[in-house]
């Protein structure tokens, strides 16, 4: 048997190592991919096109993704959604909440990850185990009401800072897990060299290790940005007054008020909410991919 395979190896070695697949496989492959892409893109294209036309044009040709030039009402739809439907002010709240949360997540997650990756201390393994377990067994559901009770006792109900605190708290396990693995792969020799040259611990942390951790931090930022920007449940519970509404709450309220008529405004609002995230994704695709795979694919 060994010999037979050796002979075959000789024969094969002459052929170029190109992947050959049967025509049937190729047909199946491209059918699935093309149909899949259409199923994903058509509704999105439809959403964008409906946000650009007048409601009359939408009603006359419901499934079309073409925009007749004389029915184009881009400015009217978007300005209505932004101002009259108050999507603009909810965008501001979401921006405020998202960026404050990201700021604190970066600082806390970076310090914690540096400590976990670079320092020896009592309880290190325990802490790491806790963070990994929290990624696998989400506690969001079980701590929901005790957290609500706590926030109310602290007098932070209906305050956007309550939401920020909870996002920072919720984002830490995943961010620390990802960053600790990232920092652990940076050669420790750099730290040691700086230490021998007389650099203090703080200097090593922000002048040596921080610049090298930037790709890892970027992944954390992008990932948490998506999670926080899109979150619905936390604001739904905590933010009651209209001036505190986030973008997802604003959207549901708008939807309730306009569900029977004026589709065009609604689609404009949907685009205002969705397109920034899609745009961020298209810019930083690789960071997303590494964020997802870091949590799931462990060698």
């Amino acid at each position, binding site marked *: 048997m060994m010999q037979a395979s050796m002979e075959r190896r000789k024969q094969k070695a002459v052929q170029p190592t190109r992947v050959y697949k049967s025509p049937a496989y190729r047909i199946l492959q491209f059918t699935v991919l093309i149909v*899949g892409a259409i199923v994903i893109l058509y509704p999105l294209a439809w959403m964008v096109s409906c946000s650009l036309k007048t409601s009359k044009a939408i009603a006359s040709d419901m*499934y079309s993704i073409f925009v007749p030039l004389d029915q184009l009402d881009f400015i009217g739809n978007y300005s209505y959604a932004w101002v009259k439907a108050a999507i603009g002010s909810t965008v501001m709240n979401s921006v405020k909440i998202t960026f404050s949360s990201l700021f604190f997540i970066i600082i*806390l997650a970076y310090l914690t990850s540096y400590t976990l990756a670079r320092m020896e201390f009592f309880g290190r393994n325990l802490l790491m185990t806790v963070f990994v377990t929290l990624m696998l067994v989400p506690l969001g559901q079980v701590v929901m009401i005790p957290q609500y009770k706590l926030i109310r006792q602290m007098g932070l109900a209906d305050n956007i800072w309550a939401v920020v605190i909870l996002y920072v708290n919720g984002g830490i396990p995943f961010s620390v897990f990802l960053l600790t693995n990232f920092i652990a792969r940076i050669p420790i020799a750099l730290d040691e060299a700086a230490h021998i040259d007389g650099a203090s611990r703080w200097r090593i942390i922000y002048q040596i290790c921080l610049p090298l951790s930037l790709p890892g931090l970027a992944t954390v930022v992008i990932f948490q940005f998506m999670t926080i920007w899109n979150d619905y449940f936390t604001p739904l519970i905590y933010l009651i007054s209209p001036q505190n509404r986030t973008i997802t709450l604003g959207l549901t309220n708008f939807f309730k008020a306009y569900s029977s008529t004026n589709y065009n405004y609604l689609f404009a609002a949907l685009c205002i909410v969705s397109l920034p995230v899609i745009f961020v994704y298209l810019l930083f695709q690789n960071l997303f991919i590494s964020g997802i795979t870091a949590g799931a694919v462990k060698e």
Partner: protein
Amino acid sequence: MTHAKNPPAKRGISRRALQNNLNAYAFLLPTLILFCVFTVYPFFNAFYVSMTNWDGFTQAKFIGLNNFTRLMGDAKVWKYLGNNLQFGVFTVFFKVFLGFMIALFLNEKFRGVAFFRCVFFVPVMMSFVAIGMLWKWIYTPSSGLINSILFKLGMMNPSKPIAWLGDAKLAMYCIIVVDIWRWTGYHVVIFLAGLQTIPNELYEAAIVDGANDRQQLRYITLPQMYSITLTNMVFCMTGAVSVFDLIYTMTGGGPYNATKSIAIYVYEIAFGSSNKFGYATAINILLFFIILVITTFMIRWMNRVKANTNS
């Protein structure tokens, strides 16, 4: 690093080790405080809250296991958990199956592969609220995208439009389709990363031994992807236990509670017309244990698979 190598000092711990510990905990302090206050304390507090009748206004009274005995007899809890199960079975199967298949199709170089890899991930970026609304429009009986197309193709009588989300039998399946639409790209990415860790030599050796495509898939790709498949399934399952956003925006649990998930029920109990926080927490604890059991079972399974493939 240091305290492990040092000979046992007089007081049991060296000064350097102590200094290292103090430094480390100084850096960890902010995170640990936040974490203890907003995760650890609420977690243990949940068990206490579940044994009270706290309603948010009056003083909470300790009522022992009453909430749990009530939970056992609450037919709604089991009915809605059944909805979660229906949702879970279909979404786990299709997300993992389609995710794997598409990842396989995208795991080679051809013109346009980057385009497809990018497209499948786009819905993952979008908020479930936006997705829910978009699809609610797509499913609208009178003028929605699907019914307009069916009508145009002559496959539907315009006087009897299909109600989709308004039909108690169809509504859950409509939501399942949207969930699959949203998440498949996520699983494609994980599977693709997994496929790329399979050493190329395995395939080369198989080709040398005369294995065809199907045999390569059966004897190399599938066994190597076993543990990643299980990881993907854990994600889908824990997601299915706590599904809320999508169903809440699309149907709110209707029609006739046909799509109500347990998380929506908990939300209604706690933040709806009544504020039965104690009872809601009891249900949340049940959900926590369901997730715990699923994850433990899957990890055990995964470790067994790993032990088998390594030996």
